């Protein structure tokens, strides 16, 4: 059976389920009585089991099955979610994640074995459950059937009487029937119709279980009325069942005939069926009720009513309402990229129309001008919409952190709590994919180096439980993510000492450096302040990697700290990578785009205002001393013959630092489409990309950050 076409969906959904398990088990640990959480955990585990079974991943199936057994016991109140149990469950999830990773790389589960874990799970099961449950325990071991169903129906088994002998396969016998269903059975019996219960087994390799169940049910309906399905028709169609389900039918046919009909449907492995009869007393009481009720509940109507089951009306009132399905579509990111590119092309064409319309005499033609404006509006809206589609809440990245912090807390033996805010802040998909690792790194750093041990904290009069904060919010065209902790902060003197010892800076240099500059040393390659190397952080590949990654995304990072009070790492990221507002400038004959986000002001200053201080040009501007960068020199442009009296200075800002860029001419502000100049050209990061101007000309986008 070829299931490769479903592999992608499997991977996606498994990820979601694992994440859901992670989140809810964390909640469970704190609120062991939270029924909704337990149900959610159960649902996720169950879906996982079913999916991995369908895909033929036996190890995943087995592990989830055993985990599900544990969840089931928790749900039945026979076990408590202790910290040790949660540890083991998390380990199980880790193993599942490892399997999934392997599936992602080569489509197989890999060689990883989890026998120890399964043993641990079973031990918990044996020691943690009461004697009363041993029977169900055994049966779960005998068959790998859905345990959930049994738990639900165990009590009800006696309520249905049967003629034939009880067999393991005749699961329908243990299905609980509702009052109105029994009424229907009584009615049918009085009309001399057969009521047949059956359990249908679908082949395990069946991929579209939902559709298969639907086919089977349709076949049954040709010969009778279905009065009950277990699981419900809704769940069957959503594939929320293992490989078997039970049905109750009112028909003129015999069970043997029904078996024959159903076996005619392909991918049906086995069908067992038998008559369903109510006990005499029960039958009588129901018939009495029926008589009392007016005869308006005739069988056809009844059948119609029951038919509603097929289309998804709830069977059991107790069952929690199915969460409203997300009104969303999964779209391949590549398709979105194509869409984005097309929107970008449109903007380029629009720009060229705008520029040619201003050249020509078209302004006189009002209609043409109006249309151009209209086009401008539409293309901008289109672009914004496409961009919004590509935006993903950072939740998808940060939601694994609470679990991580819990693990860190155990591993480091420090008490800590993670507080997250602004998880719904959205970022471009491409940024989201890359930002996870840097954030993880920062949180680990905070946990390992930032926070003190509980005893130490208490001595300092702090809350013994350390706090790590992860805040995300939008600020203009940027998204800011802050990773804060209330730990010991960064010891500037210690960094200084170490930087000198390592020869990063000389003693004289260090003496002249401001605290901020010294903190920036942290971001230099292979500079770690941790005295001991732990396996959590401090391997020498630290903040410099974080910085490189964030800069590659067009953002920057800054550290602020107060000794004894904690540190704060502030990451600034662009909202989108594809389009931005830029100031177009000219350097001799070449055009460059400066990202508007970086620009503070544009100044027209006298040449004499620029002073030379210790060999470097600076500008005194409203009390600030701003270093001057002559872009034409940096970029090796042809010099203009003579220097003008007035100099145009674009003041740009990077974090707290300012710098003045000297340009020859301003062209104006423009919305530009960012294009990559590819991997081949190595330009030392000065050029972050290129854009195509209205006339087809290429202008390069300057990244001012490395210049400052």
């Amino acid at each position: 059976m070829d299931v490769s076409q479903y592999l992608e969906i499997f991977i996606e959904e498994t990820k979601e389920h694992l994440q859901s398990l992670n989140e809810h088990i964390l909640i469970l640990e704190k609120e062991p009585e939270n029924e909704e959480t337990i149900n959610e955990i159960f649902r996720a585990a169950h879906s996982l089991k079913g999916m991995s079974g369908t895909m033929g991943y036996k190890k995943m199936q087995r592990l989830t099955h055993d985990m599900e057994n544990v969840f089931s016991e928790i749900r039945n109140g026979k076990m408590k979610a202790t910290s040790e149990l949660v540890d083991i469950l998390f380990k199980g999830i880790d193993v599942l994640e490892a399997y999934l990773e392997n599936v992602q790389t080569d489509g197989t589960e890999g060689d990883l074995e989890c026998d120890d874990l399964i043993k641990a799970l079973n031990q918990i099961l044996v020691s943690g459950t009461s004697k009363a449950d041993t029977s169900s325990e055994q049966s779960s071991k005998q068959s790998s059937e859905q345990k959930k169903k049994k738990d639900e129906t165990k009590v009800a088994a006696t309520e249905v009487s049967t003629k034939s002998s009880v067999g393991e396969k005749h699961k329908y016998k243990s299905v609980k029937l509702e009052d109105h269903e029994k009424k229907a059975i009584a009615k049918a019996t009085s009309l001399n119709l057969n009521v047949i219960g059956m359990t249908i087994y679908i082949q395990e390799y069946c991929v579209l279980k939902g559709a298969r169940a639907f086919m089977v049910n349709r076949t049954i309906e040709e010969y009778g009325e279905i009065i009950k399905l277990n699981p419900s028709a809704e769940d069957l169609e959503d594939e929320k069942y293992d490989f078997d389900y039970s049905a109750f039918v009112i028909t003129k046919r015999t069970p043997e005939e029904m078996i024959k009909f159903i076996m005619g449907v392909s991918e049906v492995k086995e069908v067992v069926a038998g008559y369903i009869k109510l006990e005499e007393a029960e039958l009588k009481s129901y018939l009495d009720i029926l008589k009392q009720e007016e005869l308006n509940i005739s069988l056809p109507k009844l059948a119609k009513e029951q038919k509603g089951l097929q289309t998804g009306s709830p069977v059991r009132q107790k069952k929690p309402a199915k969460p409203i399905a997300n009104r969303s579509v999964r779209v391949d990111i590549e398709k979105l990229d194509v869409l984005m590119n097309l929107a970008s092309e449109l903007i380029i064409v629009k720009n060229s129309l705008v520029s040619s319309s201003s050249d020509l005499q078209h302004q006189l033609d009002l209609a043409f001008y109006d249309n151009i404006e209209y086009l401008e509006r539409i293309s901008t809206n289109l672009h914004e919409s496409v961009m919004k589609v590509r935006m993903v809440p950072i939740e998808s990245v940060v939601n694994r952190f609470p679990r991580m912090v819990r693990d860190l807390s155990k591993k480091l033996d420090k008490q800590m709590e993670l507080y997250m805010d602004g998880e719904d802040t959205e970022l471009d998909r491409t940024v989201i994919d890359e930002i996870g690792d840097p954030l993880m790194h920062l949180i680990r750093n905070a946990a390992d180096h930032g926070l003190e041990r509980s005893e130490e904290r208490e001595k300092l009069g702090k809350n013994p439980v350390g706090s790590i904060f992860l805040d995300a919010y939008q600020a203009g065209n940027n998204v800011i993510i802050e990773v804060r902790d209330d730990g010991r902060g960064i010891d500037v003197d210690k960094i200084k000492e170490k930087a000198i010892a390592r020869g990063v800076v000389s003693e004289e240099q260090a003496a002249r450096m401001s605290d901020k500059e010294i903190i920036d040393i942290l971001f230099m390659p292979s500079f770690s302040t941790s005295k001991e190397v732990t396996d959590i952080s401090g391997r020498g590949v630290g903040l410099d990697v974080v910085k490189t990654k964030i800069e590659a995304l067009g953002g920057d990072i800054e550290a602020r700290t107060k000794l004894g009070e904690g540190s704060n790492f502030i990451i600034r990221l662009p909202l989108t990578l594809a389009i931005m507002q830029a100031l177009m400038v000219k350097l001799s004959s070449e055009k460059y785009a400066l990202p508007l986000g970086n620009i503070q002001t544009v100044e027209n200053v006298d040449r004499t205002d620029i002073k030379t201080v210790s060999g470097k040009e600076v500008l005194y501007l409203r009390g600030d001393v701003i270093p001057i960068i002559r872009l034409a020199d940096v970029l090796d442009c042809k010099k203009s013959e003579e220097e003008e009296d007035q100099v145009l200075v674009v003041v740009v800002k990077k974090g707290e630092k300012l710098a003045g860029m000297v340009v020859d001419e301003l062209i104006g502000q423009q919305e530009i489409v960012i294009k990559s100049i590819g991997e081949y050209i190595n330009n030392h990061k000065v050029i972050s990309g290129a854009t195509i101007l209205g006339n087809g000309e290429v202008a390069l986008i300057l990244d001012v950050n490395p210049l400052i």
Partner: protein
Amino acid sequence: MGDVSSKQYIDVRLGSNLYGIDIKYIDNIIVMHNITRVPKSQPYFLGVINLRGEIIPIMSLRRKLGLEDDEFTESTRIMIIKPEPSAAPVGLIVDEVNEVITLEEENIEKFNYTDETKADYSEGIGKHGDDLINILNILELIYEKNE
């Protein structure tokens, strides 16, 4: 055509030398475009062009091979090369594009890769009529790690 022992090349000229580029790498051949200089790049990259909305880096084959600088004429062409089908394209400037030639395996004298020949990015010498054609090792030429 399609014979295992023969390959098709595009025969291009730089000065008085002939070079062969395996046809499978060639995406397009275009006339000279306006090149936007990219500062701080490797010297053999003249800059980038806009080819139908796509930014393509342009390499001077002359500079890369250590010949005299380009002089753009009517016959100057940019060969748009894709080193791999999914890779980003890169343009190579040549003085002239002559023709498509088919060379039999036996007419190519392969070089063993030594440090000497490496500098020429040459894979071998092909004989086509009276002409000797320097077969370029495109992958080496484009992917070579920058000094």
